[in-house]
């Protein structure tokens, strides 16, 4: 088991290196291939009134004239050892891990990301709890009452959930529950309170985004669970459990659901990892200051270091999520441990 974990960890590190290179290439190499000059790239950092001369100076200062490998090396060095940036009267230290420095807001990217992470995490964790409970619950009930009215209704709703985009459900939910007069019980967009400040307010402000996001995912999980349950409930070991005299609830949860859980865990791990990297649409629809909104704002402002930072962080989360899924797999399915 220990070697298994070590092997996975090494793989994850290599993966991250590759991701960082790919990200770097996408943001720096591709524009160059597409014909962007160092000055052109630098002009994004020097405001709207900048002259060509300013852009040229900025390109020099930002090192856009250096060979790409040098730029990448500088980037990696920043991540490992930190970097320094001139802000006028002095230099600002961008401590490791320096995932870049925004010349538009004049801030290191990493602290920004850490500042945004709790919002996205709050959103993801709450939504995940709801969608897991609802999705798995509905999936189990649907499977047990296969072909019933409940099953059909639930699966139709689930299909809608999978198909409807967040920017639609988000806006509709806000209009109905936050702005519509008779039902406006939920917080309007743009409100966020940290958990530590007030857990109640935190949950109140997030309930609508949670439910909206959960609706999308719950649908997938309901279908996944249903399919898994239909399969496992036909397994011989379910009959064995019943033959032991085990109560039906325990048969379903302890034996049936446990068997159907593996694919759910896999999908959940990846979904959650992706979501922590930024629930772009949900955060945008509800104006939540999380990583996803951060990414959108950064893209809107063409703030490249931010975009890169958030991309890398998202990649880190996906890789970590993958790692955790692999490890969880071994916990859930003892047969995997042989591998």
């Amino acid at each position, binding site marked *: 088991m220990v070697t298994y974990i070590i092997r996975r960890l090494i793989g994850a590190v290599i993966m991250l290196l590759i991701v960082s290179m790919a990200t770097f290439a996408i943001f720096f190499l591709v524009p160059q291939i597409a014909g962007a000059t160092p000055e052109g790239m630098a002009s994004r950092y020097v405001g709207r009134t900048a002259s060509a001369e300013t852009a040229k100076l900025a390109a020099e200062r930002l090192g856009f004239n250096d060979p790409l490998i040098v730029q990448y090396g500088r980037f990696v060095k920043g991540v490992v050892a930190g970097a320094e940036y001139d802000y006028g009267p002095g230099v600002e230290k961008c401590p490791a891990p320096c995932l870049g420095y925004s010349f538009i807001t004049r801030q290191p990217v990493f602290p920004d990301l850490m500042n945004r992470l709790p919002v996205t995490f709050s959103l993801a964790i709450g939504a995940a709890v709801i969608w897991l409970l609802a999705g798995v619950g509905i999936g189990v009930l649907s499977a047990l009452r296969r072909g019933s009215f409940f099953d059909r209704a639930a699966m139709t709703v689930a299909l809608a959930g999978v198909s409807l985009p967040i920017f639609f459900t988000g806006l509709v939910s806000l209009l109905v529950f936050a702005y519509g007069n008779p039902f406006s019980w939920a917080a309007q967009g743009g409100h966020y309170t940290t958990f530590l400040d007030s857990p109640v307010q935190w949950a109140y402000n997030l309930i609508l985004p949670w439910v909206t996001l959960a609706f999308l995912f719950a649908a997938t999980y309901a279908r996944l669970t249903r399919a898994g349950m239909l399969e496992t409930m036909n397994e011989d070991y379910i009959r064995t459990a019943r033959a032991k*005299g085990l109560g039906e609830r325990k048969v379903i949860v302890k034996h049936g659901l446990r068997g159907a859980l593996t694919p759910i865990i896999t999908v959940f791990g990846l979904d959650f990892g992706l979501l922590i990297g930024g629930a772009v649409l949900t955060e945008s629809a509800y104006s939540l200051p999380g990583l996803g909104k951060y990414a959108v704002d950064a893209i809107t402002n063409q703030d490249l270091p931010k975009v890169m930072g958030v991309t890398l962080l998202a990649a880190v989360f996906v890789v970590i999520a993958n790692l955790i899924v692999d490890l969880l797999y071994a916990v859930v399915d*003892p047969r995997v441990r042989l591998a």
Partner: protein
Amino acid sequence: MSFLELKDLRIHFPTDDGLVKSVDGLSFSLERGKTLGIVGESGSGKSVTSLGILGLHKGGPARISGEIWLDGEELVSATPEHVRGLRGKKMAMIFQDPLSAMHPYYTVGDQIIEAYRIHHKVSKKAARKHAIDMLGRVGIPEPSRRVDDYPHHFSGGMRQRAMIAMALSCDPELLIADEPTTALDVTVQAQILDLMRDLQREFDSALIIITHDLGVVAELSDDILVMYAGKCVEYGSADDVFYRPEHPYTWGLLGSMPRLDREPTDRLMPIKGTPPSLINVPPGCAFHPRCPYSDRTAGRASTEVPELLETEGGHKVRCHMPKAERRSLWENEIKPVVHWEDEITAVETP
């Protein structure tokens, strides 16, 4: 009243294509300490019967009628919850393929502990001790170590022993073994059968063995019930059924039994055709389309359902042919071909 008694048990499943009459009027009885072998092809209703006794069809789509009396209690009309309380404790079951019948994600010990603790309010520790004890009794070496292994760590035979340990963990009075040795290789089969016989004596439980393999029942059973299309076609002591079988289907089963002393293909007498659909059971005798002797019934085979009639001393047969004709057919045509006697003798000899 016997310890276990089935009276006219019917288990029908409504489906989109029609009513599946898996068990259709089955009656038999079984005493403590005795073994009943139920024999038949797959789809003949034997497994459905055993699950029916355990009450596992309750709450599902099945329509169940008739009576199942277990130790003076009627189970068909009992609540599912009551039957659940009996399951595992008063009656237990050993399943065919222990790899798929045991949960792959829980250790063998956990699964035995779970079975034990459903019916015994004891600590986990005590249950674990009991589980180790049971594993030892079914002949698993180093039980205190193997108790924490997962099913996939066990060999096929060991797994079946573990399965038996789980079934016996609550000291059931009725044990049903559904094809207990089918998935095992021959040497292991013999060990398992020995084990079951020993344990049955030790626990003095009533045992039902369900199999398509006459060799297994021959070794263990006191009585044998031959099922075809949800009905009993022949019932009697092991001696009756093996030495004096009167139903052409039983003859077919005996004839199609693979034997070590027989040449492959040579003189093997398989039954023609396939088992009937349980939705459209052939009219008259359900076996008649496959029966080589159906022309000897004066046409009744395809029109009239034969009764299960006693021929002598508890031996019952469901056949339109006159008793004399059946006996003469067996003595003159069938018995010489199947050489059954030798085989039995060989097995019975310790």
